[in-house]
């Protein structure tokens, strides 16, 4: 079975500092990796996905198959980045039916 691990429950940085949210996964097949974000009083929404290779709100994430990681990075954090972040995985192919396996989540707080 696949697993997603986010080792940091809480992460605090100051505005303008770089931020990295860690995500490690275990899955022997081909995964699709996502980062979802939940801002205060808003619904959970997609931030970015590996296959798109795009930068959203200044965030990027690189899939490292050797280290089985998909860390989320931003060079200069902003206060509006404060939120709960979830890393998630879908097994590609077969009968995955799009079922997401989530990590435990990381609460990011960006201080002014």
């Amino acid at each position, binding site marked *: 079975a696949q697993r*997603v691990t*986010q080792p940091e*429950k809480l992460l605090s940085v100051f505005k303008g500092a770089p931020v990295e949210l860690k995500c490690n996964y275990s899955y022997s097949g081909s995964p*699709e990796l*996502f980062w979802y974000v939940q801002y205060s009083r808003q*619904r*959970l*929404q*997609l931030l970015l*996905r590996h*296959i798109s290779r795009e930068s959203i709100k200044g965030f990027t994430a690189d899939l490292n198959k050797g280290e089985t990681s998909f860390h989320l990075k931003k060079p200069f954090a902003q206060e509006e980045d404060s939120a709960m972040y*979830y890393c998630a995985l*879908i097994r*590609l192919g077969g009968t*995955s*039916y*799009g*079922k*997401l*396996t*989530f*990590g*435990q*989540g990381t609460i990011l707080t960006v201080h002014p």
Partner: protein
Amino acid sequence: NAGVTQTPKFRILKIGQSMTLQCAQDMNHNYMYWYRQDPGMGLKLIYYSVGAGITDKGEVPNGYNVSRSTTEDFPLRLELAAPSQTSVYFCASTGTGGGNQPQHFGDGTRLSIL
């Protein structure tokens, strides 16, 4: 654009009571999911559906039931509420292109069992 709509937003139940959490989507999505979110545990899949009339268990199905009589609706039923079912419940859907498209989430239902 409503997207995924969940009702109610909050509910308090007594142990042993039953209730149905409603979920509706207006995007003509075939795939729908129910997750529960417990503090420090992330979201775990309860049940999912790949189309009207087709449902299957996820990771944590015990104590729950679902049905999918229409494409739009995917209600989650708690038959005998237990304190362990205190959680935030999220419904999600994704498009007909298959499972590797992003999921759209509802606002959630916060449920307390006392």
